[in-house]
Structure formats: C-alpha cells, structure tokens
C-alpha cells in the first residue's frame, strides 16, 4: 500500500470540523481550474459559432438579394413574352397590314428587349387596346 503524504491533517475527533473544511477547500481548489478550463473552452466554441452564424446570415442575405433581382428579371421576361404574343395576335388578325402599324411593330420587335419596363408596359397597354378594339 502506498501512503501519499499530504498537508491535510489526520482526522481526529477534536479537529474533524477543521478537517472537513480543509478537505472541501482542497477539493474546490482542484475542481475550480477544471471548471474554468471548461468554461473558457465553451466560450471559445461559442465565439467561433457566433462568427459562423454571422457569415451564413450574410450569405443568406446576399442570396436573397440575388434571388430578388432574378425575380424582377423573370417578371420582365414574362412581360416581353406577353408583348410578343400580342404582336403575334395583331399579325394573325391582319391588323399589321396597315403600313404604319406594320413599320411600328417591326421596330418594336427589334428593340423590345432594350426598352425600359415603363415603355414595355406602355406597349403592352397599346397592343391590348388595339386587339380589344379589333375584337369588340
């Protein structure tokens, strides 16, 4: 049996309370650094996860902005498609046989994808008006 010498006094009936306190202090002294080490470790992990969260949030925000831009582009492309369908209807119903309207539609077909959205919407309204007039 190996006997380890410590500074903890031998427990005798007179000093049992002192012994308890000494033992408790000794235990606390040894346990406290362990908790401190665990705590510092956890705080470090928390900090790294916090920066990871910030990074991913930035990524999500950028992705959202990109998607919003794409949705606007999709809407614009759909409007262009609608305009082409209306021009097709004008041609098929013989409304473009008129020289001025034919020339106007040729120009419109050549530049429709370069128009501002406001101009594109204006042409959509105009073509709808002509078609409605024709079929009313």
């Amino acid at each position, binding site marked *: 049996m190996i006997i380890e010498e410590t500074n903890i006094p031998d427990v005798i009936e007179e000093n049992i309370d002192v012994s308890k306190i000494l033992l*408790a202090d000794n*235990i*606390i002294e040894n*346990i*406290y650094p362990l*908790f*401190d080490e*665990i*705590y510092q470790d*956890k*705080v470090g*992990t*928390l900090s790294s*996860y*916090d920066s*990871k*969260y910030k990074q*991913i*949030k930035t*990524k*999500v925000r950028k*992705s*959202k902005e*990109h*998607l919003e831009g*794409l*949705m606007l*582009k*999709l809407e614009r*492309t*759909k409007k*262009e*498609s609608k305009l*082409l*369908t209306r*021009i*097709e209807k004008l*041609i098929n119903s013989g409304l*473009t046989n008129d020289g001025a309207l*034919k020339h106007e*539609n*040729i120009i419109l*077909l*050549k530049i*429709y*994808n370069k128009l501002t959205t406001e101009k594109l919407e204006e042409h959509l309204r105009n073509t709808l008006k002509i078609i409605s007039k024709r079929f009313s």
Partner: protein
Amino acid sequence: MDIQVLTESARKKEALPQVINRIFSVCKADPHFKLKTEVESVEDQLKVLKEKIAKQEALLIKSEELTNNVKRRISLIQSENQKKQVELLENLGSEL
C-alpha cells in the same frame, strides 16, 4: 489477508458515489461554483446558435434551388422569345 484487502477495497468503491455527492454538496456552496451555471448558460447559447445555423443552412440550400429554378425559367422564356421574335419579323417581311 488478501480477502481482507479485497473486502476493504469493495467497501470503498461502494462508498464512492456517496463521497462524490458530498463533494458536490460542499462545492455548490462555494462562490466559485457559479462557473458551473455559467458553463450551462454558454451551453444553452451554443445549442440555440447551432439550431439557428442549421435553419440558415437549410434556407441557403432552398434559396440556391430556387435561384437555379428561376435561372432555368428565365433562360427558357428568353430562348422562346428569341425564336418568336425571328418568326414574327419574318412574317412582317423583315429580319434581325
């Protein structure tokens, strides 16, 4: 003699949980022990943060899927528009 040592050792082992409980009872009363609560609090924060990261990651995956889908749709409509533009110009006796 050996049997006596073994019996003593077994008795010590049986008493060990009681000793540990007593140690923790004593430690809990010590102001230094508040670190344990703080460790638990950090662990809770870490758990919340991990859940938030998982949600953001799922969102990012969905966003990427949606982006690709929208890109595909735009490309498809643009290609149809281009085709129709050429056809209509031809119908009107013109070309690009």
